[in-house]
């Protein structure tokens, strides 16, 4: 009890201190484009990278290495879930009963599934043109598979196919980086022409990377879902 109240008081003091420091000193609303690196991104981004979506230009081109790292973070997390849940099924006889989905859900999912896949693909293919990108598109694709699981209790993905897909696209990203190093001496260098901004085939290596990320994230998230479903059974 005493421990708890001391902790609470400490948290309260910290909160007040942090809140007032930030409220007084954070330069909210100031024009800060001239002080840091942001003006270069804003004024030269389209020319430098050929991507009309500036966020993508920064995420995949200027700071593409971070994105390779983030893809790895998700990959490690998905692998970790698989490793942790390995052989961790419920003891026999304690199976949770599953109810078949209704006719409406089953029919609806059959119609919606391909459309969701298409929408996900659209988001990552147009990552350098419109808001969205590989991670978002991949998440949409995984949602489509989740839909499959919800509507059909017997549905299962083919693990080997998913693993192979994931591997191939992951290696594509790493290879694009290594090719940049071999061709120009810079890892992840944009060695393809920028094209004219706004067209589907523009922005150099960005579309390749985003298609790879989209497929990879979709496969990974679906893999996590599948791992968890197996534990349930």
């Amino acid at each position, binding site marked *: 009890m005493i421990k708890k109240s001391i902790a609470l008081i400490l948290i309260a003091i910290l909160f007040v201190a942090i809140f007032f420091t930030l409220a007084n000193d954070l330069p909210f609303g100031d024009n800060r484009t001239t002080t840091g690196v942001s003006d270069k*991104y804003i004024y030269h981004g389209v020319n430098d990278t050929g991507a009309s979506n500036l966020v993508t230009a920064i995420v995949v081109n200027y700071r593409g290495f971070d994105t390779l790292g983030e893809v*790895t973070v998700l990959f490690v997390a998905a692998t970790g879930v698989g490793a942790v849940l390995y052989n961790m099924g419920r003891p026999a006889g304690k199976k949770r009963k599953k109810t078949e989905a209704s006719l409406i859900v089953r029919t609806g999912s059959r119609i919606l599934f391909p459309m969701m896949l298409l929408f996900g693909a659209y988001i990552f293919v147009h990552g350098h043109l419109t808001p969205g990108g590989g991670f978002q598109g991949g998440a949409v694709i995984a949602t489509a598979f989740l839909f499959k699981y919800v509507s059909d209790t017997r549905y299962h993905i083919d693990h080997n196919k998913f693993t*192979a897909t994931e*591997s191939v696209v992951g290696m594509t990203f790493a290879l694009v980086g290594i090719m940049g190093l071999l061709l120009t001496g810079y*890892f992840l260098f944009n060695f393809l022409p920028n094209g004219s901004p706004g067209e589907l085939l523009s922005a150099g290596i960005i579309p390749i990377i985003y298609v790879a990320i989209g497929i990879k994230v979709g496969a990974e998230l679906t893999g996590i879902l599948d791992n968890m479903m197996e534990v349930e059974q």
Partner: protein
Amino acid sequence: MVNIDPTLMIGIPLFMGFLIPSVAIVWKNSPRYLAGFTILFNLIASTLLLIRSLNAPVISVLGGWQPPYGIVFVAGPLGSMLALLISSMTMLTWFYLPPHIKEGNETKFYMLFILLMAGATGMVLTGDLFNLFVFTEITSIASFSLLAYSRGKDEKEAVEATIKYMIIGSLSSAFFLIGIALLYGATGTLNMADLASKIPSANHNLVMMALAMIITGLGIEAEMFPLNGWTPDAYTGATHPVSVMFASVVVKAGFFALIRVVFLIFGAATEALQILMIFGLLTLFVGESSALRQTDLKRMLAYSSIGQMGLLLVAFSLNNQTALVGGLYAMLNHAIAKGLLFMAAGSFIFALGTRDISALNGMGKRMPVTSALFTIGAFSIMGLPFFGGFISKIVIIAGSMQAGTEGMLVAILILSASLIELVYFLRVVHRIWMREPEDDSRLKEAPFTQMFPMIVLAAFVFLMGIYPQAFFKVLIPAAQELLRGLGTMIGGA
């Protein structure tokens, strides 16, 4: 001589990490060899990198965007030395792995294993603050997953430890990320050298708050008291080779990230050094005195690890060249000797089936080689002459003597902490060699492939004790690099 770009030390492991699962579908035993090959590549690359960086820091610009607009890898003697330490410890642990990971999904283990190495290597080589965060994430998520890998008797414990570590670790990254956001808000840049040059003119309150957040975040990874609640459980619950990786790679990379931020970005701000000094001393004493009370071998080693990290914090916060060299020496010695101790302890526990220290009675007769190796590691951590630990403690104390009366006090405190260390390690060593075993039967020693890494580590412990000059050749430029700061290295970017 062949020059290998430092970015390949990340690129190749990531590529292999993605490749392993699909090759494993057709060839089941491949992950071990592919992982071994990757680690060997990193070992060679980091050796070449260290030789190159002794002349001039190796800078590799990613994507061709010059700093501060893009990400940059900066490998000075310090970073290259750490990279070499990481890859060689990973290589040696790779030899030690087989019987300890049989029961789980080996393919996934090897993927996580090399990605852990890649993450830690990235942490020590990157010259960009946000990139440091990304690699910290890779390293810590790979550690959570490897920690949860434990099977059989320890499984429940491992799961509990994982959840604990995961919650604390997520808090750590949240703090670290908020700190980075505040710094970016105050300066508008993420490149370390650029940050270092802009921080003096930025809003002081914001900078200090960012510093506090980052110290909290990275302090968790570096086992700083009172942020180290996850440590004992994690070391105890993890399967033995993973404990080795924690002590020798993960915690060292986290500690190094903390030191780099404080020294290179904040220019060794006195506020930060005072905090590190106080918490370092606390960590030292809490760790050592908790180790004294343990009856579980791995738990004792875990607390001893915390104590040693405290010693490192104290050494670095003294902020003079002698103390820094001593701190780096202690860092190397701890990575090598504690790795050796965890491997030997793992072999004991594997043979005995219990972690209880009292079961070690007479092990000197039952498993003589492993016992001898364990003793060498223990002597080095204690700081007995002719072992690496002795040199490191002597140099740290010499460094603290330079810091006036306050330094004298620090020296006395370090010596008394060493005394505690002496007591609990000698107690174990005494059990191993002097006590009569209850059961006289010889136990099977580990096969040579597992003995080999322990012998290599023991040889290094000796080498560090009798020929320290060889190590000083690298450590002195490394310490100077920390003291000089980043500004001159990339021309302020």
